[in-house]
């Protein structure tokens, strides 16, 4: 089922890249010899001949463009440190974010391994960890959530791919503020170190849930983690500063530094999505940073912002947190939707269905997302009448999101679909995210939320949104842009094994958790043995099923790492445009040099002109004159 007749066409070194300096009019270039038709059977692993690789003389041509701002200084004899750790090159910073995010994902995965083992086999000594105490359990679930959202989804989807793609897709040489960009990563790295340090201080890591509701998070006599809680809040606040700095660059670069000719409707959808996500982030994070400062003051110098005994209000934190927290969902969702859009159009050889409508739905979603936050607080003690308003706004957000999904499904109509690994990931994003979307209705509707709030139903729901976003979206993006990033193709067969080995266990983890949630399993419970109605063996079996599926899913990630490293070392050379895509990043060598474009490109058309009638080729790069 996963097979496809399409093979990456790396031999088709098209676009007259011979000199790299001039963009030749592709429109007039006849189908030249090496360009295979897609249906032609091509061996998956051709020997690395790829004789048309023009990247060989790339350094020479590059010497001639020292005029690109401050880039000249980095060329030639730069040290490892300057090149990879202190670089202002957006692509290097993207890699830094990507690899740091992947490293943090491993930590987050280890945490889920430990606490799911405890849930399936209460009281066992978990291999590699030991017995899990309730305090450790709480710290593990808290930090698993925080890491996966703030240190994996955010850095990988927004920071890594935002950094990598925005300058390349907009046709400029780097971000508008490269040094701010470098600072952004450095602060992010610092925040990661502070977070990891918080696990090892006296009292252990913070265990008050990733939402950090006071008074539990504000007073050490309640949380019993005096240092862990403070370091945790500081780490989160630093992380926000890092993404604020990054967001400035994303918005400014996409709005001001586009190639000549690139109009608003010619911007690739993923760039739009990252820009809107950055705007949402910047507009929503302020209140939470203020809240974080108040929380640190409550913890350390004894203020009482959230202390009811001294006139404070614990609910205030919840409003500040969720005013940020709900737009945050869309902050990570939108880039993943954008990535999916890019991949689906390329591998369906189709123009994106109703591009302007997609933009409207993005803006509508973004605006609505600021008016839904209290659906997290229906039963938190807010005035019950407020729930009615927030039910309306929350259920309404299903309209633009459903429309976005309809657009993607409609894009497939009339396509010529190649089920490559990136395409499988992109399609599975749509298929799986639909489950996350429809189950959200039960929680947005205040009446049913009374029952489902803080149960495993909620947990399964948001994992059906966040796993498609952070895991599926990331794998889609990595497998799709790997040839551009590293100049080599990934192994398709291993890619597909990894895909099915991830997607099947993923569903086997969370479908049982929906059932357990409906049966009344509450979240963040260390052991269900104390609850007679939940300790029944048939429910325990479901917990074991979820845990075993999780182990299988984690195991299959080894295939990905093996494929990643093997392809990095010995994958077939990719050439400039292995997928025959239209957007500007595919017109430069793989990997692109510092400064990206030898000559800054001019844009003549939108990014999704695939299968245009009357043309030999079924793609039409944005920079090819008509």
């Amino acid at each position, binding site marked *: 089922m996963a097979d496809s007749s399409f093979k990456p066409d790396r031999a088709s070194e098209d676009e007259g890249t011979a000199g790299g300096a001039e963009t030749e009019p592709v429109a007039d270039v006849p189908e030249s010899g090496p360009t295979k038709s897609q249906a032609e059977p091509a061996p998956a692993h051709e020997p690395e001949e790829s004789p048309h690789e023009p990247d060989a003389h790339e350094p020479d041509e590059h010497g001639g463009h020292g005029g690109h701002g401050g880039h000249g200084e980095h060329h030639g004899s730069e040290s490892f440190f300057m090149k990879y750790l202190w670089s202002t090159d957006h692509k290097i910073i993207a890699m830094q974010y990507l690899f740091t995010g992947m490293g943090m994902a491993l930590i987050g995965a280890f945490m889920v391994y430990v606490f799911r083992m405890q849930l399936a086999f209460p009281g066992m000594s978990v291999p590699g960890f030991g017995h899990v105490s309730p305090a450790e359990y709480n710290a593990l679930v808290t930090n698993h959530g925080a890491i996966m959202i703030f240190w994996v989804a955010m850095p990988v989807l927004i920071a890594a791919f935002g950094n990598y793609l925005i300058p390349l897709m907009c046709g400029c040489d780097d971000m508008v503020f490269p040094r701010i960009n470098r600072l952004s990563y450095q602060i992010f790295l610092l925040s990661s170190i502070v977070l990891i340090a918080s696990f090892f201080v006296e009292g252990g890591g913070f265990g008050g849930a990733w939402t950090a509701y006071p008074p539990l998070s504000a007073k050490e006599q*309640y949380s019993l983690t005096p240092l862990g809680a403070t370091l945790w809040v500081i780490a989160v606040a630093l992380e926000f500063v890092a993404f604020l700095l990054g967001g400035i660059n994303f918005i400014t670069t996409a709005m001001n530094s586009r190639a000549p000719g690139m109009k608003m409707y010619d911007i690739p959808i993923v760039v739009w999505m990252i820009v809107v996500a950055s705007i949402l982030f910047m507009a929503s994070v302020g209140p939470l940073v203020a809240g974080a400062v108040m929380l640190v003051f409550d913890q350390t110098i004894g203020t009482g912002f959230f202390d*009811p005994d001294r006139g404070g209000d614990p609910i205030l934190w919840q409003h500040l947190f969720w005013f940020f927290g709900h737009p945050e969902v869309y902050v990570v969702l939108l880039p993943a939707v954008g990535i999916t859009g890019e991949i689906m159009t390329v591998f369906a050889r189709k123009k994106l*269905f109703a591009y302007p409508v997609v933009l409207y739905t993005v803006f509508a979603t973004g605006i609505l997302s600021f008016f839904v936050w209290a659906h997290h607080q229906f039963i938190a003690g807010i005035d019950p009448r407020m729930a009615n308003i927030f039910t309306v706004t929350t259920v309404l957000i299903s309209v633009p999101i459903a429309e976005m999904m309809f657009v993607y499904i409609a894009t497939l109509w009339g396509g010529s679909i190649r089920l490559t690994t990136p395409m499988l990931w992109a*399609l599975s994003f749509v298929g799986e995210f639909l489950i996350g979307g429809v189950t959200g209705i039960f929680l947005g*509707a205040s*009446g049913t939320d009374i029952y489902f709030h803080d149960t495993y139903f909620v947990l399964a729901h948001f994992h059906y949104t966040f796993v498609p976003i952070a895991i599926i979206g990331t794998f889609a993006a990595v497998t799709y842009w790997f040839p551009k990033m590293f100049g080599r193709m990934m192994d398709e067969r291993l890619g597909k094994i990894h895909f099915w080995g991830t997607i099947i266990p993923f569903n086997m983890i969370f479908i049982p958790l929906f059932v357990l949630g409906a049966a009344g399993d509450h979240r963040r419970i260390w052991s269900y043995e104390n609850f007679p109605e939940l300790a029944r063996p048939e429910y325990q079996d479901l917990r074991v099923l979820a845990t075993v599926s999780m182990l299988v899913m984690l195991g299959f990630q080894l295939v990905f790492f093996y494929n990643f490293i093997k392809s990095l070392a010995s994958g077939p050379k990719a050439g400039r445009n292995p997928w025959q895509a239209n957007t500007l990043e595919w017109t430069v060598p793989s990997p692109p040099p510092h400064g990206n474009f030898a000559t800054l490109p001019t844009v003549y058309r939108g990014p999704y002109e695939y*299968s245009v009638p009357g043309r030999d080729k*079924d793609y039409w790069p944005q920079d090819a004159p008509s």
Partner: protein
Amino acid sequence: MIEHYVVAASSYARDIDSLFDLIFWLVGFWFVLAEGVFFYLIFRFRAKKDVKGEYITGEKKSEMRWISWPHYLVLACDVVIVVMAVRVWMNVKQDLPEADATVRVIGQQWAWSFVHPGADGKIDTADDIETVDELRLEVGKTYHYRLSARDVLHSFSVPVFRLKQDAIPGREIVGWFKPIKTGTYDIQCAEMCGIGHGLMPARVVIEEAAPHAAWVAEQSQHQVASLSAKPAAE
């Protein structure tokens, strides 16, 4: 569908279950339709030799219909869901019926305390009955609960009632329930409240009028015996 897993033991539990069923069928329809079309398109438009994709912008009115009509239908479903959800919500959380009795529920790290009215049927009097981790109710009576917390946030969750409400230090939240089924069921804490969060189980005991009255009488005797020094109000 929820009653298949958890007994419906309060007067409004059925309403919440029916709301769940309604949403289930509405969104289930959309889900099956969307996934069905999605998979159909993937199989129908697999790459074939010498067949190019079609050039469809999706910006023409005739094409736009394919997404605008479903979108109006989704909106119509949303209206139905919102109306039904708000009706259930107002019944459960907003409009409190007259109470036959009131109980006080207090969360603390890591136990639940309950204050029941004694023989006089009122709380905050000398003959109140205090229990820890056990709530005693009489079937068919409408109760108000007055919910508070001593230290951090807790959440009073009774799955068989389909009821959940956070307890907040410094506030007293009033709500209601009416047990309709006898039996002994779980009470859980649903809000992270520290290291003992998973270890504060309590039970609700719902009984007929006669055994309940007997329990009240028995507790009152204990209470009277040990009362002398105890302040009346919590």
